[in-house]
């Protein structure tokens, strides 16, 4: 069924407005389409200079992250059939990051945080090609490898979304799952990952309100399977006198 939908799309300064604003469009919608299809139709018919970042149209590249009716979503995975035909649909860029133009944001904050994490470190004497591990040992880490780096979790997390000043001290949920992935990895030999998560990544700032998990398009249980287990591991090394005493007595690391 084809119908005309009312869209409001964020346009940066210099497009149709002086300092950025939501601009109204009436645009055709066909059965089976997603929001990204409509944005492309806008580009083709009414707003040739509308900027949007996209790539795979299959929910796997993590490029088309934006906010649809205030909710952080992948444009290519948001079906038009989930909205009423008379509903006004508002599309804005990710609100936690600087806008480059229209719906495209500068997500380099995330790359900075990614570079700060010490890389996977196999035990001494184990060369690439010699890695051997059991499935049950590595499966927890594998859940986190599903991440497509769309940064919807980073954008939604109120620690930086509502407080720009926290960005230097806070790595965000995407990089907490990276920390958990490496700390739980059976062949990662580094023992300072918990300390790094607390001191350098600012894991203590997370108040586990689970918005990262809610918006994850890969349905990774970010809070329950990565952040909380990492918080508990930090407790082991920092706040639990019994574990500390046990490690001294039994000389365990």
């Amino acid at each position: 069924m084809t119908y005309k939908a009312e869209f409001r799309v964020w346009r940066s300064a210099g497009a149709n407005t002086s300092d950025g604003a939501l601009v109204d469009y009436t645009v055709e919608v066909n059965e089976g389409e997603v929001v990204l299809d409509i944005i492309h139709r806008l580009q083709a018919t009414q707003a040739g200079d509308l900027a949007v970042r996209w790539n795979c149209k299959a929910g796997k590249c993590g490029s088309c992250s934006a906010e649809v009716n205030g909710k952080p979503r992948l444009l290519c995975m948001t079906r038009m059939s989930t909205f009423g035909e008379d509903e006004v649909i508002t599309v804005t860029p990710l609100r936690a990051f600087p806008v480059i133009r229209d719906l495209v944001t500068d997500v380099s904050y995330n790359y900075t945080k990614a570079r700060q994490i010490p890389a996977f470190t196999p035990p001494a004497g184990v060369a690439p090609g010699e890695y051997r591990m059991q499935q049950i040992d590595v499966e927890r880490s594998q859940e986190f490898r599903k991440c497509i780096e769309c940064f919807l979790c980073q954008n939604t997390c109120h620690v930086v979304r509502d407080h720009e000043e926290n960005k230097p001290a806070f790595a965000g949920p995407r990089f907490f799952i990276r920390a958990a992935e490496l700390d739980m990895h059976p062949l990662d030999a580094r023992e300072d990952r918990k300390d790094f998560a607390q001191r350098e990544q600012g894991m203590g700032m997370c108040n586990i309100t689970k918005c990262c998990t809610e918006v994850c398009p890969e349905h990774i249980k970010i809070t329950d399977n990565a952040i909380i287990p990492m918080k508990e591991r930090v407790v082991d090394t920092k706040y639990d006198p019994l574990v500390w005493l046990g490690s001294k007595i039994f000389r365990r690391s």
Partner: protein
Amino acid sequence: MTAPAATAGPPGGTESSAARSAGRAGIRERTLRTDRWWIPPLVTAVGLAAWVLYALVRTAMQKYYWVDKYGYLTPFYSPCLTQSCVEGAAHFGRPLPKFPPLVPFGIVALPFLLGFRLTCYYYRKAYYRAFWLSPPACAVAEPHAKYTGETRFPLILQNIHRYFFYAAAIISVINTYDAIEALHGAQGFRLGLGNLILIGNVIALWAYTISCHSCRHIAGGRLKHFSKHPVRYWMWTQISKLNARHMQLAWLTLGTLAFTDAYIALVASGTLSDLRFIH
């Protein structure tokens, strides 16, 4: 053709100045969500406040906690260790002196149970969202100008959750003892509706306690190589299944605790007569 932007739902307000800075889209609305995002935090706030009010009134009452005829002791008064306590209800003796009015008879256990729930990873989410509005809902700006999370006193104390878990496990053993003890009457085994309610409550309490994130960590989550610890891996797997239901169990136990207490209070006060199956 710029339309005025609609703000979704109460309360209003705009996003913080920090969020508007650093080249972000200059959207003034606190959120552009069009769904009724304020309902879940409102329901949580009302539910928790109602339960706390009920618990405060009942624990301060100092009566209707024990049904002598059937051996029912409400979990709110267990263990009853004070001289003020009815003798039959004191399953573990009465080493503490008489309590002045309003002091809960279960004062030895209650702070630990409160601590367990206050530091619980689910309740933290619930009250940070519902009461502290940090954030009230996803992608809805919080009203606070500064945020330090759980890095400073007092919230850094959330890290002692595992010790409250140990205490809660001991208290669950006591509650289990109370429930089993109520089955033994002068004429041997006895069973009434109150027994079923007590046992149901204890099962729910165990499910909630065991599904705790700290318990999951202690049982096996802290290991690096599951393959070297098959028993702990099995326990971790089972606890993980329960853990996925931690929120539901948290609310279920609030319900069973209040219901069990209310039932015993009604029977103890003579308002309701217990439905008996055996003796």
